[in-house]
């Protein structure tokens, strides 16, 4: 291998050169046992990239004004030079679709292929969340089905009608997710036939014939029945199944939005890991290629140049600071795991007795397979990384007039920082906990939701607007209550507003 001449170093790329690079990268990836879906690499223009951006990375999206808005926003920030476009977008599907922008130079394309086609791709295929919650082989089919179904609805019921339902669904999109139950993947044909079956079933429900069957008898009426029996966290699911006035097609649209939301749910929970993993691999693969004389110094330097800007972490008081950079943190942690395995210090042996000195590749694969951001940080954030990042925790209690530093990067602080950072990636701390609590079955059919604040953090003002959307879907009064730590329940809002 090393006797071979290195690959040409661009800067211009051709499809033949991409193939050559891809070949080389694939061989290295195999060496490191990166198990991936087949790759489908698509070269696109900047405009198409913005398209992909605005449809939140769905390769096929139904039409909705909000995507138009996002496109305009992206286009503007891009044109003003406030934002560079990402070099790549990768889609969790099988084959795994990766977009390369045509403006990239050859070394950049190589970097992107290593990053997306082997880093992200293997993550999608092997991380437990993705394995449990998404089905890569059916997602494209499902998106096609969704697009067609929605445009059919638009033709049949009018663009405005459909838009209203979609608006409302989007407002509740974060609450269309099953956090614990496991859906089973189905193909497009199955999806279609099921959808038909659902339609027919619902039609049969309104058949006049059924009305002659006697209704249930007495005694139940006396008890005050609570429905649902236990609170339901998946609000969209609850509405799809139980909203009294919705038509079949509206239920189907809710279902579509909910499914798509569910598909993206694992990505939200694995940002740091996913990006860290992909960044670690483009770094490792490109260095490996260089070490074996397959790429020139020129290519490596260009790759490192953009690599370093990707993993830059500005300090808390820098004007560029906007939270912790998932690329930086993820990459640092992945490298640190390798370091702990290869060159453990006494400190590492104390903190990580089970991985210090073990096979690094094995350890890293295990970490990638079995964790999400929250648990990954709780498990693997080492004192070394905390020191490198100079992490500290800031306690902001609105009852006190000052902010307090709880822990810094020292011996007493490591554990606190680790749990605080882990909690920061716990979605249930970030997304307000709102669940369907009750429906007044015997009364006015009003729907009651309950918000349980996390550490006294109130709900933002947007709640009134969201309640309007919820009311549109439910069709009857909607009430949002807040349960205070004392157990007292207060009403946050209702739609339509109380007279």
């Amino acid at each position, binding site marked *: 291998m090393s006797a071979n001449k290195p690959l040409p170093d661009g800067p211009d790329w051709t*499809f033949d050169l*991409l*193939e050559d690079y*891809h070949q080389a990268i694939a061989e290295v990836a195999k060496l490191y046992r990166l198990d991936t879906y*087949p790759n*489908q690499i*698509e*070269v*696109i223009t900047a405009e*198409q990239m913005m398209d992909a951006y*605005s*449809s939140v990375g769905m390769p096929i999206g139904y*039409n909705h*004004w*909000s*995507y*138009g*808005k996002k*496109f305009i926003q992206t286009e*503007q920030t891009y044109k003003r030079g406030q934002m560079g476009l990402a070099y790549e977008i990768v889609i969790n599907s099988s084959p795994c679709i990766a977009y390369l922008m*045509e403006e990239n130079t050859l070394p950049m394309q190589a970097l992107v292929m290593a990053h997306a*086609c082997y880093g992200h791709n293997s993550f999608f295929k092997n991380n437990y969340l993705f394995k449990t919650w998404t089905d890569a082989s059916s997602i494209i089919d499902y998106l096609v089905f969704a697009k067609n179904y929605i445009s059919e609805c638009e033709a049949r019921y009018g*663009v405005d009608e459909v838009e209203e339902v979609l608006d409302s669904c989007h*407002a509740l999109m*974060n*609450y269309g997710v099953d956090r614990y139950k496991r859906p089973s993947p189905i193909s497009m044909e199955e999806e279609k036939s099921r959808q038909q079956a659902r339609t027919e079933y619902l039609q049969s429900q309104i058949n006049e014939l059924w009305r002659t069957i006697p209704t249930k008898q007495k005694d139940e009426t006396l008890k005050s029945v609570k429905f649902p029996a236990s609170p339901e966290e998946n609000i969209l699911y609850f509405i799809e199944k139980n909203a009294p006035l919705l038509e079949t097609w509206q239920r189907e649209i809710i279902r579509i939005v909910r499914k798509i939301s569910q598909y993206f749910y694992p990505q939200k929970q694995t940002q740091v890991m996913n990006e860290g993993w992909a960044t670690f691999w483009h770094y490792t693969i490109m260095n490996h290629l260089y070490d074996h004389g397959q790429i020139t110094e020129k290519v490596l330097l260009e790759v490192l140049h953009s690599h370093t800007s990707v993993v830059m*972490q500005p*300090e*808390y*008081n820098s004007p560029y600071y906007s939270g*912790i950079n998932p690329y930086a943190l993820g990459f640092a942690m992945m490298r640190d795991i390798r370091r702990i395995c290869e060159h453990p210090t006494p400190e590492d042996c104390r903190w990580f007795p089970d991985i210090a000195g073990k096979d690094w590749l094995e350890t890293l694969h295990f970490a990638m397979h079995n964790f999400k951001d929250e648990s990954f940080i709780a498990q693997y954030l080492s004192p070394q990384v905390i020191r490198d*990042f*100079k*992490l*500290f*925790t*800031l*306690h*902001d209690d609105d009852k006190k*007039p*000052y*902010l307090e*530093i*709880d*822990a*810094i990067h020292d011996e007493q602080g490591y554990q606190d920082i680790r749990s*605080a950072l882990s909690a*920061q990636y716990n979605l249930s701390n*970030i997304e*307000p906990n709102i669940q369907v609590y009750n429906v007044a079955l015997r009364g006015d059919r009003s729907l009651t939701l309950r918000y349980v604040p*996390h*550490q*006294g*953090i*109130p*709900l*933002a003002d*947007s709640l009134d607007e*969201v309640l309007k*959307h919820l009311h549109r879907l439910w069709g009857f009064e909607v009430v949002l209550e807040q349960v205070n730590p004392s157990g007292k329940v207060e009403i946050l809002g209702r739609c339509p507003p109380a007279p």
Partner: protein
Amino acid sequence: MAHFIDRRLNGKNKSAVNRQRFLRRYKKQIKEAVSDAVNQRSIQDLEASENISIPQRDINEPFFHQGQGGDRQRVLPGNDQFTKGDKVERPPQGQGSGSGDGDASDSGEGQDEFQFNISKDEYLDILFDDLELPNLQETDVDQLIEYKTSRAGFTNDGVPSNINIVRSLQSSLARRIAMGASKRSRLRELTTRLEEARNDPHCPQQDIVALEQEVEELKKMLAAIPFIDTFDLKFNNFVKTPVPSTQAVMFCLMDVSGSMDQATKDMAKRFFLLLYLFLTRSYEKIEVVFIRHHTQAKEVDEHEFFYSQETGGTIVSSALQLTKEIIEERYPPSQWNIYAAQASDGDNWADDSPKCRQLLDKHLLPAVRHYSYIEITSRAHQTLWHEYAELSQQYANFAIRHVKHAEEILPTFRDLFAKKVA
């Protein structure tokens, strides 16, 4: 292993539908922004693309999220000065050292306006939404003079240059088959009989000779069928179809007497410009004739029209007379769609006004598609307005409006060309 696909060739504007949905949804706000722009921005920019800004709150997509306050712990990088237990003053709201889990753009220095650019076409679409050119359908079909030549199948006669070779040879072939069919089958029959006769030793010689003769004759007749006949010739057929005339001429008439100041002229210019833009949407080619007048009328170029200052009295009929002459000379109404717009502050010699009315009534109004008169003044109407008002009762294509302020121009314009509900 890996597929490479070149998607660059795929259609552009994949999200055009989404963009249209967006514009459609915010039509009301965008319309307001556009008409504000028309009224306030400088005239030169009218035709360019337009920056639109609509309030951010209108386009927010609401969702449940955490608000400010509560008891939070954040992890931040880059500790440079703190030790455990340090107390820091709370920074003022909005500028926060937030760790990005909030809604900084909603509460902080986020944009209040959502700004974006719409193209010239989208801009004009919105500007002239719901407007139409009046009287367009009624007259345009019977007055057309322009023709367009188009193919219309095939015909049996024509000039040699229009011969359609394929069709001609097709019919030649058909004719040859048809004319020779019976002879060829007879020929086949005779040939077999001749063959039999030759093989039959008992067959008399003269029978064979007779058969041979007949075969010869048939062959000659077959050869005599002409390869191509005038009868076969097919010609491409062309017909002329009348098409609605796509050219228009627009007359801008303006009073430049001393009483018209620059502000009034600006308002007039806005009106002319709107009309011009509106016409460009219906016609491919538009000529503009500028006529200004005080006591005498003169055809001038655009710059002189808007910017040169004259003094003196006002005789409106001079401009109308000149318009009439120019129409007669250069723009026959049978070939041109004629539009005219007149702007004035209403001053005129009292005894000239009836003359104006007469000119319009007899010559101009029958010839033009539409004639609009706007009077830009804050004073009482004078004789010209009264004469015109009477006339506008009689003619559907004559409209007069009174404008006082610049911001009334667009509403007036919209009012003039509003779609009439049938």
